[in-house]
């Protein structure tokens, strides 16, 4: 019965069809009907899943199938989709506070956890508990305590006629920065009314601290408030959206100025600002986060491996591997060509001293830190074959081919995996004749219940078996030679492509429309901070055409996203 249910399920869901599947927030997503429903006597909901799962109101993120984007009607008109009001992410909050108070480091303040859309932190859910709200209140309090020692320099009262005048200026300047727009007269009056009694009782410093608390707990600070003007963002709102989308913080002085004098609303003025923001190290930093969140590299620096199995894998190596990926991504989005193909399949990387031996890559004679190192002949190419990815998606004692494959499948190709059906036995331990991971995972291929998904996912992970759990190259697994070759089946495009090894595979992936469309969807989520809806296929198809024309230039894609008229439309209208 169970096997039957599970086969029905795979037939109904298919594996990899992204279309019309609502992804639960974050990892482990996907929904599988499993049980017999006593109320109907039918097997789960398997008949309904393929077509009946409508977009839910508060988590409407659903990847669109590649075909829908690739084959969209060239004349289609993008429909603007209005996602709900969003809260600042933890990082945006911290960056904003750091910039507002000119702190030297990011304040490590406890805030409500971010929600996820796909692999990215974006807050569209309603705050659900008193605890979360009180965290914002305590954060405001903690930050005002942090600001206390330097409040004189934050206030800048020199040259002011009186404390009252100074406080008034503070409300106007600090307020405009925190709320990303000039305050209305009514707001100024109200903020002053809150602070003046404190000024009288406890002095100007205390009054300023109370104001900081009030500003930082204001909905106008915590949420991306966009009221707009005739359905389009106002100059200040556009500046704020650009600042958060490209830098994850409040607008800098130049951006605020372009909003104040209205230049940001002209085509040239907007382009100039976008180019400036994208050319900045803060954008490169944000791009690094994109790569890191997208591929799950955020924790690489603190990965620990079993000491007995991997004596060479030290904390220093873990940090060096993280630095490699981070330097590599910074190069691609900074000085490099910005191309997806480079990110996924470049034949060079950036190593620090200890990694030459670790990777067994010869050190060029004139090498110094920061120069590109050729990977030709090393079996590696692109970010998926770097130690950061390989160690992050492995167990402490052994590789995790399904985990590795699943990240590529879900995050790089935007295909979805239903969870394994219930009632399956654990994989067999090593036994005579079953030594390598490939041999152990053959169980998947043999079982009709598993094969549906695993025949697509497993080859992606098994291709990387030449890299052990610590990211080191190996030829053998348990005394037997590793076979890394396989077939890449991309269900949407419908083509099977054979590959020899990991380096070969990543090249095939990089040039596939699936990966290109997926990169667009991921970048759109990350930059526009919006969930993807089925309706978005038209808009995404426009990006796709231009992305292809640019030779998959990710920076051009980002610029395309923020310059498109849809980006300037109001979000959050009823």
């Amino acid at each position, binding site marked *: 019965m169970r096997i039957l249910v599970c086969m029905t399920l795979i037939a109904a869901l298919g594996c990899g069809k992204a279309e019309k599947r*609502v992804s*639960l*927030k*974050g*990892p*482990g*997503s*996907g*929904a*599988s*009907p*499993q*049980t017999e*429903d*006593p*109320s*109907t006597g039918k097997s789960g909901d398997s008949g309904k899943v393929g077509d009946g799962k409508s977009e*839910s*109101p*508060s*988590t409407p993120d659903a990847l669109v199938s590649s075909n829908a984007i690739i084959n969209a009607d060239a004349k289609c008109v993008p429909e603007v989709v209005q996602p*709900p*009001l969003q809260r600042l992410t933890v990082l945006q909050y911290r960056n904003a506070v750091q910039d507002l108070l000119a702190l030297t480091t990011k304040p490590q303040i*406890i805030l*409500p*956890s971010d*929600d*996820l859309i796909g692999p990215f932190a974006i807050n569209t859910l*309603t*705050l*659900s*508990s*008193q605890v*979360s*709200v009180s965290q914002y*209140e305590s954060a405001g309090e903690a930050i005002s305590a942090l600001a206390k020692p330097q409040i004189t320099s934050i206030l800048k009262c020199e040259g002011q006629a009186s404390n009252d005048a100074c406080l008034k200026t503070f409300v106007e300047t600090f307020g405009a920065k925190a709320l990303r727009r000039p305050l209305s007269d009514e707001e100024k009056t*109200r903020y002053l009314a809150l602070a003046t009694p404190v000024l009288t009782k406890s002095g100007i410093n205390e009054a300023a601290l*109370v104001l900081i608390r009030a500003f930082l*707990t*204001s*909905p*106008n600070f915590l*949420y991306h*408030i966009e009221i707009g003007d005739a359905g389009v963002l106002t100059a200040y709102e556009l500046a704020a959206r650009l600042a958060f989308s490209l830098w994850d913080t409040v607008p800098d002085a130049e951006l605020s100025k372009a909003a104040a004098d209205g230049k940001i609303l002209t085509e040239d003025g907007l382009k100039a600002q976008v180019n400036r923001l994208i050319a900045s190290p803060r954008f490169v930093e944000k791009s690094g986060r994109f790569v890191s969140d997208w591929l799950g590299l*955020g*924790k690489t620096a603190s*990965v620990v491996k079993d000491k007995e199995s991997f004596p060479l894998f030290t904390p220093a190596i873990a940090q060096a591997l993280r630095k490699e990926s981070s330097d590599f991504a910074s190069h691609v989005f900074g000085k490099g060509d910005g191309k997806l193909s480079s990110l996924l399949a470049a034949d060079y990387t950036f190593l620090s001293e200890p990694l030459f031996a670790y990777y067994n890559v010869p050190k060029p004679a004139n090498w110094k830190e920061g120069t590109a190192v050729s990977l030709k002949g090393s079996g590696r190419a692109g970010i998926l074959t770097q130690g950061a990815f390989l160690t*992050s*998606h492995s167990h*402490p004692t052994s590789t*995790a081919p399904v985990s590795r494959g699943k990240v590529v499948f879900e995050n790089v190709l935007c295909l979805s995996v239903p969870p*394994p059906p*219930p*009632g399956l036995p*654990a*994989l067999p*331990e090593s036994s005579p004749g079953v030594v390598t991971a490939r041999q152990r995972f053959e169980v998947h291929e043999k079982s009709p219940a598993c094969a549906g998904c695993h025949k697509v996912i497993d080859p992606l992970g098994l291709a990387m078996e030449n890299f052990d759990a610590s990211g080191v190259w190996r030829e053998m697994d348990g005394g037997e030679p590793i076979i890394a070759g396989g077939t890449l089946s991309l269900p949407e495009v419908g083509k099977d492509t054979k590959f020899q090894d990991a380096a070969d595979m990543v090249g095939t992936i990089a040039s596939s429309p699936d990966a290109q469309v997926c990169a667009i969807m991921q970048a759109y989520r990350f930059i526009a901070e919006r969930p993807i809806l089925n309706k978005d296929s038209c808009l995404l198809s426009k990006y796709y055409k231009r992305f292809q024309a640019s030779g998959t230039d990710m920076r051009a894609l980002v610029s395309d996203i923020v310059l498109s008229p849809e980006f300037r439309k109001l979000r*959050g*209208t*009823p």
Partner: protein
Amino acid sequence: MGNFRIDRRTVIRGAGSIAIALPFMEIMGEKALAAPDAAKRYITFYTPGGTVIDDWRPKGTETNFQFGSILQPLEAVKSKVMIVDGMNMKVASGEQHIRGLVALLTGTRADDAKNGFSAGPSIDQILAKRLSQGKKFKSLEMAVRWATGKTHGKIHGFNVLNFEDAADPKPIPPRIDPQDIWQSVFGTLVPPGEGTGDAASSQLLMRDKSILDYVDRRYVTLMKKLGAADQKILEAHLTKIRELEKSLSTGVGDASTTCKKPTRVDTSKYNPRTGLNSGDNGEVVDSSTDESIPLVGKFMMDMIVMAMSCDLTGVATMQWSDTEAKHQLPWLKSKGINQHLHYYEHDGGYRPKELAIIHNWYASQFAYLVNALSEVKLGDKTLLDESVLFWGSELSHPADHSNTDMPFVLAGNGGGLRTGRYMKFNGVENNKLLVSLFNLFGDTRNEFGKPGFSTGALNGLT
């Protein structure tokens, strides 16, 4: 309780059919006198990843049974617990861990969820309206070593048990920082005979209130300018601000001889947010935090017991990690445990021997909580006498993630729960158990969760 024991269903039927006009006692006659008081306090105790059912299952009959190796630590509180064997959670559907976690306390299906989590409120939140009326906290959700592995310290279907009692029930993230909890629950508590707090803290309180009040008005002003959907988001935020304001002004609990501030334990080696740094497969290890798990767990349980003694709340959840529990268990190292829980479930192949050791430890923690509640005397009763505890997990057998034969345990005598027994059910749905729990608290509904999965309560619990 004497010999007479009213079947709760008789009570419900009686109340329903003869309308409300007749006083209860007249319908039931003498028997009603024997009706036990409704339970007053409810605690969920969650442990991750099911169990090893063969080592969990007791041997013997309802009243004469011997614990298996996993539940051995309950021997000391045997007369206060009820083993509930053979329940199913067929309502569970969706991702294999999420589905069980959603079904456990809501009886709903993750697949039906509108918010990506649960399609209905969890039992504790509904009970909170009844049990925590006038108390400082509606409920206290605590989790130790929360959001490991793939959830990276963030709220996710893998790690949330509690859902608001609302039309669109939002997940409620647990409190995870033991020091924060101590401060917010007991920080302002003034034990009897110790005056009314110092002037400085009351001045701070006034300032907090005026800022909150101010912020409150900013939200109202802004809401008028936004669309309906956005208004709803801000309104939810505002409601929580108002609750916060209210909790600042309400009393600090009914201080009595049984109500004392729990000792503030030093947990400086424990980082409650270490989940934020977790790796997908448990490869990122935070030894000092993991070593502190037993200490912090005990501290949290002590705070739950004291929050209940002080009448600061009537509902609590004690959550051990999350469904995957990808943290180390260094205190079990001497017993050969050197990997995380999920490793023994299937990451490293199914290993029942190691799992039994871990679940035996969880049982000892449940025994600790049950015993601690029994040590708080309320007149001729104990806190445990008025409480009901429900210990559950999101699945039964970790290797195949099945939701049949759930390892459930109840404890406490609230609502007349007759403990000291081993109850065997043969594939009854957990929605029925949830209905029974409601009934113990005087909520007489006979259906809960997804329709079609339960009618009526379990027989024989009281």
